[in-house]
């Protein structure tokens, strides 16, 4: 009696948790651009002027400037990542004027030093005094004052011009802009004649490093070329999502009917484990904030077919043990034990293939591989351990007493 109560409790609690959390999960899982529409571009960066070196810092800086541009253009959650030494991947969702956005993105980052023009409002600077390419390449450095306060050392090419600017703007701010974003507005303290200056302020070390990288990038802007691009219309993305989910539901129903038809009571447990499995993979996506792409959903659906394989292998083994004349309980025990190694071995080979895809693949392939790995790992938890636990509870509770509940006929059982 105790066992049957705990069985019912486990099933009810699990169902309750799944039903309670699923709407929230489904609503909040991040969908890839191929499902919600948007576009993805892979840029290769090279210095605007030939013969210059490309540094990782300037690549990161370019990525940051792309991100702030995308934000300024009002796109939702732009995603910008650097890849390798010279690539930047940009993902944008929900863009209406694609051509404009794409053209803007490709423009090199523009660094300017500006002063206040006559009709500027408070905190606005629009008179351009110096441009990024007037600085000596890679000459900006972070140095420290005697009080260990970081400052940025800069060098300009035209000493005379810099001297004139610093003389004219003495005591006034000389603001630093990247594209149209104000980064900092230090005040000119004295006339500087040797073409070098120190920018000091209440910078943290990190802010100082950032400003240094920005100035160096401005001195040596990168040229971006599109190497790969994918753009998906929002309607088309929604269509793919709906179609594929429908395919998944039909496939799942077929698999559930198949399992229950063949394995009866254990089949029902396998089906319950399978639903738990699906919920768990969704939960992992939600908790890990992973992005679900179309190939990802495909992996998800294939994973449903693969997860029940563990149950099939176990149940066939249990049936075999029962036919040899063992009691139900010892058949379940022996069947679970003997099939475990086989299942793990076959799952590991799939994980090997998925891991290779994850490490060598890009974009869509990576998304697929990630789901496949989660699929297999969670299926070990749900379709081996969880379903074994449920089945053992039921058998020990003496609820399933007849072999036919396992899909085994009395006539097939040999005397021990």
């Amino acid at each position, binding site marked *: 009696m105790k066992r049957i109560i705990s069985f019912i409790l486990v099933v009810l609690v699990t169902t309750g948790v799944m039903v309670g959390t699923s709407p929230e999960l489904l609503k909040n899982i991040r969908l890839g651009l191929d499902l919600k529409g948007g576009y993805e571009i892979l840029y290769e960066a090279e210095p605007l002027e030939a013969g210059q070196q490309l540094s990782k810092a300037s690549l990161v800086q370019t990525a940051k400037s792309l991100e702030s541009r995308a934000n300024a253009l009002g796109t939702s959650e732009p995603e910008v990542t650097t890849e390798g030494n010279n690539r930047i991947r940009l993902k944008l969702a929900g863009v209406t004027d694609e051509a404009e956005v794409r053209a803007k993105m490709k423009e090199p980052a523009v660094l300017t030093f500006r002063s206040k023009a006559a009709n500027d409002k408070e905190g606005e600077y629009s008179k351009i005094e110096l441009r990024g390419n007037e600085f000596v390449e890679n000459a900006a450095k972070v140095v420290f004052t005697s009080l260990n306060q970081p400052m940025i050392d800069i060098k300009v090419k035209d000493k005379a011009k810099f001297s004139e600017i610093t003389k004219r703007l003495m005591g006034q701010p000389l603001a630093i802009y990247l594209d149209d974003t104000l980064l900092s507005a230090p005040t000119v303290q004295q006339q500087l004649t040797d073409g070098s200056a120190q920018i000091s302020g209440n910078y943290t070390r990190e802010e100082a490093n950032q400003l240094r990288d920005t100035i160096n990038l401005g001195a040596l802007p990168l040229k971006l070329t599109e190497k790969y691009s994918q753009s998906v219309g929002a309607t088309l993305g929604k*269509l*793919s999502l709906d179609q594929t989910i429908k*395919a998944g539901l039909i496939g799942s129903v077929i698999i559930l009917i198949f399992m229950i038809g063949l394995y009866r009571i254990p089949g029902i447990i396998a089906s319950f484990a399978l639903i738990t499995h699906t919920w768990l993979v969704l939960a992992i996506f939600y908790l890990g904030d992973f992005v679900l792409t179309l190939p990802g959903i495909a992996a998800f659906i294939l994973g449903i077919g*693969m997860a029940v394989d563990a149950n099939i292998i176990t149940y066939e083994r249990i049936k075999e043990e029962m036919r040899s004349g063992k009691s139900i309980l010892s058949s379940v025990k022996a069947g679970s034990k003997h099939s475990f190694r086989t299942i793990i*071995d076959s799952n590991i080979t799939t994980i090997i293939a998925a891991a290779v895809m994850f490490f*060598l693949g890009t974009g869509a392939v990576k998304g697929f591989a990630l789901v496949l790995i989660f699929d297999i790992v969670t299926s070990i938890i749900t379709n081996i351990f969880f379903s074994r636990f449920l089945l053992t509870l039921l058998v020990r509770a003496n609820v399933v007493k007849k072999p036919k509940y396992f899909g085994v006929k009395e006539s097939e059982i040999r005397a021990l």
Partner: protein
Amino acid sequence: MRFNWSYDYIKGSKIAYIFSIILTITGIVSILGLGLNYAVDFRAGSNVDISVSKAITTEQVNPIIRDMGVDEGDVHITPGADRVNVRFSNVLDENQESKFKQEFSKLDSKASYEVNTVDPEMAKELERNAIYAVLIASIGIMIYVAIRFEWRFGLAAVIALFHDAFVVISVFSIFRLEVDLTFITAVLTIVGFSINDTIVIFDRIRENLRFAKKTTKAELREVVNQSLAQTMTRSLNTTFTVFAASICLFIFGGESIRMFSLAMVIGTLFGAYSSIFIAAPLWLVLKGKQVSKPKAAAKASN
């Protein structure tokens, strides 16, 4: 419902070998002669997939392409009632792309687009990575199976696995089906999954070997046949569930994973076939060489 699966599979494997060899040769001829029908992912250019609300003909699309200043010879148009595909062998820049969309939307205001553009250098890189991936995955699996079982099982499993991957690639070459990035994903999944059945069978062979006499080749053959009969329901059922999932994806799933699903359908079926008729008999051939040497036979019986 229980079938008796006793059958001389080793005898059946002779026919399977012939079938597989013919298939492989046809595949090699097709791949060398016709090559693969690469999608834009692997051969650079731009691919435009449009879901349309009314049928659009090639004649309607052609003027747009002329207008863009692209040579019609470089463009391949596949018209359809609900989907139109336009493939450009050259990379479209963003102005051409938006111009195309603008003009096409005049034909059908409800059109929704998917545009993929791949630079030649990138295409080469993707192709290279794909080949590396298949090789590394196969080697990894072979090493794993060799460690868990013995090298003969590992070798037989990997030959069967290459067979499955190769059959899928051949079928795509022969029927001129489009090979895109998701196809590679499917081949790798087949490589990882089709071996599952093989492992179930090998596991059973190993288990049966413990209790069996294995001094002659005939005795070994009996063990293999028995093991195959015992695991047949398992192999068929596990294949069915994955097959059901892939065929549903193929029939009802989104357009851009159709080729992926088809590759999975073919791969799953051939995976089951090769586990039964290629991997297990092949192991027997390898193991049989060992028992025919008297010294080795004595060693094997411990």
